[in-house]
């Protein structure tokens, strides 16, 4: 009822996060964990989840006293003009490369599994146009689109996973500790930036109706996504066993290629449109965040005019690596490795500075 202009409600916020993060279980994110943690990848995933709570808590704490600032403004406030800009620029660089690599992954999935005869650049261009259009419409409309499609996307995903589950063999999950606890922990520590998106959502923090909704929404989305991805990882292992899953790049798509429902023997094309819509919303959202960050750093108020340039840049960079199937995952893994410690430490650092600056002193008054 208290719909304020230009803001999004908790439903839209959660919907965006669920789609943006939930699609991770359908790309090569699970296979990054299988490489080292083998059949115990799901334990690593849970560990990552537990570890991720720390930076999220710190970040929320900092945001609780700076409710009208987005991530970039917060950086400027905490680190000063020069360092703040440098930190934001770093974030922009990471965010942009993540966007390029992720979108390259998705285009790779489409062109390798579904449209083998279509040149990848054509698919990339279509994706660029759709996501550019979405990003130009703004966060409210991305949120609304996410909310409208959310239930259909999650229901079909659940159906696919359920059918895969019935075809799976639970014995593949054992031995429970797989390669040993050390490996599991190591994997978790090096790949924890899977959830680094939670740092970037600080960019849209002031757009959410109220801080309370932001906080609640973040936790709802986080727990849902964590459970979702963990279950998916378990199901993939049950379906393929750990020896073969290590060599599978995109387990979700292998799974829907493998399963059949009733008289329909090949169901992957049924799931394809739903997955694609989730992907479109995800990249619209990422593109929007990158644009806001870019606009904030370089003081460009009407950043929607940057959309075409940014899209062209992304398509150009995304199609440039040859043998995308091998290069892109490698680059992604490197990126995650670098990002992991940063993602863990930066929010703690931000909190520390805020503490030293005495930002939390007024907190009690604000909450009342």
């Amino acid at each position, binding site marked *: 009822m208290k719909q304020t202009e230009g803001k999004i409600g908790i439903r839209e916020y959660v919907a965006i996060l669920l789609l943006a993060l939930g699609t991770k279980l359908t790309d090569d994110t699970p296979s990054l964990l299988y490489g080292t943690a083998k059949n115990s990848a799901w334990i690593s995933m849970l560990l990552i989840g537990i570890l991720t709570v720390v930076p999220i808590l710190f970040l929320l704490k900092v945001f609780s006293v700076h409710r009208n600032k987005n991530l970039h403004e917060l950086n400027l406030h905490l680190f000063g003009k020069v360092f703040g800009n440098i930190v934001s620029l770093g974030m922009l660089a990471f965010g942009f490369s993540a966007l390029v690599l992720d979108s390259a992954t998705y285009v790779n999935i489409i062109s390798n599994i579904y449209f083998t005869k279509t040149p990848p650049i054509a698919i990339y261009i279509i994706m660029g146009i759709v996501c550019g259009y979405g990003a130009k419409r703004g966060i409210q409309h991305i949120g*609304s689109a996410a909310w409208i499609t959310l239930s259909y996307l999650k229901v079909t995903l659940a159906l696919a996973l359920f059918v895969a589950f019935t075809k799976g063999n639970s014995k593949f999950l054992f031995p429970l500790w797989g390669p040993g606890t050390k490996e599991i922990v190591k994997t978790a520590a090096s790949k924890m930036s899977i959830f680094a998106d939670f740092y970037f959502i600080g960019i849209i923090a002031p757009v959410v109706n109220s801080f309370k909704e932001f906080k609640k929404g973040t936790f709802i989305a986080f727990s849902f996504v964590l459970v979702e991805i963990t279950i998916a990882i378990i199901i993939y292992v049950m379906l393929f066993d750990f020896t073969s899953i290590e060599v599978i790049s995109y387990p979700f798509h292998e799974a829907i290629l493998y399963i059949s429902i009733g008289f329909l*023997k090949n*169901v992957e094309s049924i799931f394809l449109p739903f997955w694609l819509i989730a992907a479109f919303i995800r990249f619209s959202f990422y593109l929007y965040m990158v644009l806001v960050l870019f606009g904030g750093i370089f003081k460009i108020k009407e950043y929607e005019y940057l959309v075409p340039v940014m899209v062209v840049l992304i398509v150009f960079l995304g199609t440039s690596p040859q043998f995308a199937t091998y290069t892109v995952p490698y680059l992604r893994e490197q990126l995650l490795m670098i990002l992991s410690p940063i993602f863990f430490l930066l929010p703690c650092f931000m909190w520390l500075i805020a503490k030293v600056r005495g930002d939390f002193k007024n907190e009690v008054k604000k909450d009342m």
Partner: protein
Amino acid sequence: MFKLLKKLTGRKQKRINFKDTLEKQSNQKDQSVSRQIDVNIEQIKKIYQFPDNKDVKFREFRIGGTGKRVAIFFISSITDVRTIEDSAIKPLIQTTEIKAEIKEILSTQNVTSLSEIKEVVTNINTGNAVIFADNATKAYAFECANFQGRSVERAENEVLIKGSKEALTEKVIVNLSLIRKRIKNESLIAESITISERSQNEVFMLYIRNVADDQLVGNIKNRLETLNVDAIQNLSLLEQYIEERSFSFFPSILYSERPDRAASFLEDGHVVLLMDNSPDALILPATFWSFFHTPEEHYLRFFFGNFVRLIRASSMFITIFISAIYIAVTSYHSEMIPPDLLLAIAGSREKVPFPVFFEILLMEAAFEFIREAGLRVPNPMGPTIGIVGALILGQAAVEANIISPIVIIVVALSGLTSFTMSDISLNYALRIIRFLFILSAGLFGIVGMTSLFAVGIFYLVSLKSFGVPYLAPMTPNFVSSGDTIFRRVLKNEKFRPGYLKPTDMKKKSNGAIK
């Protein structure tokens, strides 16, 4: 591109030389009523070009008692001549009173005195009769308008099985009466606004004062008052003048011929526009759901109503997607069809020389031709078109190996399901969108369709009708009765839609369920 088009059309207009006859016309009327009756008579005769203008009537006579000269003017085609004779001319001639004023002698329901020629002309134009008297600076007008029109008939475009059968007519007074019959409340306001300068078309703006948001009412009123055109004949044209996005596929103003529908929207806090010459009402603001709904779903019981909604939702899906899906699946994703069916399709297409895309496009186009022809053809020939279209075209095309039988099924299904959408604007929107999906499926299969769908969703959620988001209350969320794809039990529909910001949110108190 549209901006460029606008610029071009704008530039072209500037080159045209204007000759403002309207201003000359209004200058002519800019006088006050003269004391000498002959001057007035000459003036009015000149304005109406009497006696060239055949239905403008003029009668001069003397009052019975005083012997004072009077003249009466009216347009016979839009007045009730009997009333003029019985309640004006007769009493005036037969009176024997010497001191009585003209106002007192007339036995009509109301008499107004006018002092400007402009007012006199307006009154004559709207069907009133005007009396001039010698030695008086005032003219007298009384109501005797009688415009010809249909009587109340059955609704023909929005047909219901259960519920009222009345439809709005071309006479705005009848329409008002039909709506007032349903809302017997003094706070139902019918304001009249003149929207055009030359034809002086009048729009009635209806709203319930202590329900509708004042800002919304003000906004709509402002938009109507700032129109600057010579003539707007009816609501279908007015709709295009006041809508926000002229190039949008999706309508933003609801157009209905049912008074019960208009009344129920009024009760929710919407604004309704009525106009002479329009057998319909414009309801604004409108959301996507209001185009998707029909009143019948609320007249039917809970499950039946929602069953109809389910049917309509799936029809909408089928009408947009089925042709596109057929193209995408057969040309890009043939592995998903069960082998037996695939063989059947391949067998039926064996002799067809065209690609599926072309085949579907051909048949869809044929269907649109039949539909348009069926609509325009004079009534007695109607059935012939149907027979020629369905039997000859379909059957013969299959036998001539131009079209495979499955395509006929697909296209017939997509055409048939499009008729479940009772709103004509949405119907057209879906028909055009279907072709876009066919094109995208032909180009990129399911990826193309999904891309177009995603763009469509982004577009749909960004639309607004008079400040109301198009998909509200689904997203963004508002307090409302939750009447979107499905409806709730009637007793639980407690709230007016929050996106209208109604002054009174609650439709029913909790006590209503006792």
